[in-house]
């Protein structure tokens, strides 16, 4: 079967506040699927419903395969050593203590207590724990939150290796750059609903190719956002917008000091979707 996870009409409320509103999607085997959204969009709730950590009010969840979970906020007893936690989880999962500990470069940390580990080291340990028992489907909730650049690069590389091994990965993130570099498909959540689902390329096509024109002028310009010394305009047609802008500057005798044009990043497109109708 090609479907790893199938979600049908999932609804979840906390009291009177419905945070997941009739959501349906599927995740295929072997793909990296990202749930994107601003804080409070419902990403973690959806993941926790799928993981079995949270009860849901309505809908159906079908999982084809063994799951491994790395939670957004997780912890272990303060005084437990990395190797002890690893052994404990291996024993309860009846799994062999294999090379996972070394794969995540945890060998130098094996006698380090949990309370003395850095955020990155804890993330690596929790990822190793999530992979005990060789799961087919791996859940990663904000996997790089709180990591430094080196930690992020290292974790991204490990996530790519998991994909190469044929694992299905479903991740929640609010970092578009991370999602863009890692995922095959994306679902953007907005107010508990899916605002977009598809590949990153489809996202670009769906929203349309937008450009950002940065102009530095002697005097202020109207109808523009001021960012780091430049007046910024968003446009789909560069030539028309740029022509109009330069014409206005000439007519008002406003000296143009610099002009830059950038193609809108996926992150900006995501922000556009997230902000729509607000």
């Amino acid at each position, binding site marked *: 079967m090609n479907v790893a996870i199938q979600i049908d009409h999932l609804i979840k409320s906390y009291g009177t506040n419905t945070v997941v509103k009739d959501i349906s999607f599927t995740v295929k085997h072997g793909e990296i699927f990202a749930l994107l959204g601003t804080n409070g969009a419902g990403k973690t709730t959806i993941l926790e419903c799928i*993981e079995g*950590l949270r009860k849901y009010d309505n809908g159906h969840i079908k999982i084809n395969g063994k799951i491994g*979970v790395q*939670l957004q*906020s*997780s*912890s*272990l*007893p*303060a*005084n*437990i050593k990395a190797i*002890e936690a690893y*052994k*404990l*989880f291996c*024993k*309860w*999962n*009846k799994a062999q203590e294999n090379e996972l500990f070394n794969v995540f470069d945890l060998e130098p940390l094996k006698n380090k*207590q949990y309370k003395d580990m850095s955020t990155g080291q804890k993330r690596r340990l*929790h990822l190793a*724990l*999530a992979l*005990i*028992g060789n799961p087919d489907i791996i859940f990663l909730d904000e996997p790089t939150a709180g990591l430094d650049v080196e930690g992020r690069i290292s974790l991204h590389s490990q996530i790519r290796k998991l994909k190469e091994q044929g694992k299905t990965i479903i991740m929640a993130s609010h970092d578009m750059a991370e999602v863009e570099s890692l995922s095959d498909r994306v679902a953007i959540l907005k107010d508990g609903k899916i605002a977009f689902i598809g590949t990153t390329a489809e996202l670009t096509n769906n929203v349309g190719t937008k450009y950002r024109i940065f102009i530095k002028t002697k005097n202020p310009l109207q109808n523009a956002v001021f960012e780091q010394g430049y007046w910024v305009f968003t446009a789909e047609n560069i030539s028309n917008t740029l022509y109009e802008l330069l014409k206005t500057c000439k007519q008002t005798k406003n000296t143009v000091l610099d002009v830059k044009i950038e193609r809108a990043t996926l992150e900006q497109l995501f922000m556009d979707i997230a902000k729509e109708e607000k």
Partner: protein
Amino acid sequence: MNAFLYGVALQWKLDLRNKGILLSYYIVPLVFFAFMGGILSSINPQAKDNLIQSMTVFGISMGAILGAPVSLVELYGSEIKKAYKVGGIPLWIAVINNFIAAFVHLFIMSLLIYFIAPLAFGAKTPNNLALYFLALGIFIIVNLLVGTALGLLIKSPSKLTMVSQFIFLPSIMLAGIMFPVSLLPKFLENLGKIFPATWGFKLMNSDVFDAKIIIPLAVIMLISIVISGYQLSKISLE
């Protein structure tokens, strides 16, 4: 070693690394024993007759009521329970591990008092050794069940400290281990009967097995088991 035994042994080691738990399982009870053993046996030579029992009741009450619930609050009041749940570790196992590890710690502490008291203070050893150790085992179990119920009922460490002290202090003051309960006003003497320390002290001082002493301990044990079971079922369903 299977998962269960590994978990128990690991919990025992984690307790030894936790300064707070180490204080309540060993250091404070033994330091209290060293000071009070000397004072009580000097001012009242008759105190030597039940010095082992009184200091043991103090140590076990402290360890089980103030120390044992700490690990449970740390686990069930935090994200650790989620990590265990997704990691395939049953949530109830932490209660069992903590219980067995704490039992071993408190038994070792009790043995230290049992062996040191006669040598250091000339304390009298119990007449019926088998009954004493049976009583000791029962008393540790009942206290740990009370501690477990507290650890599962209370979610925050600060609240736990407050509630635990509320049980521990009257237990010690009203159990008869510091002075005879006959010196207390009737109301306080009766109040002392709701705490396991009062019955544990009586049981450990008995030369014969008295069912009347066991009944109140059994009731406390039963209530604690019901509370713990209910709380655990709630935690599992969350």
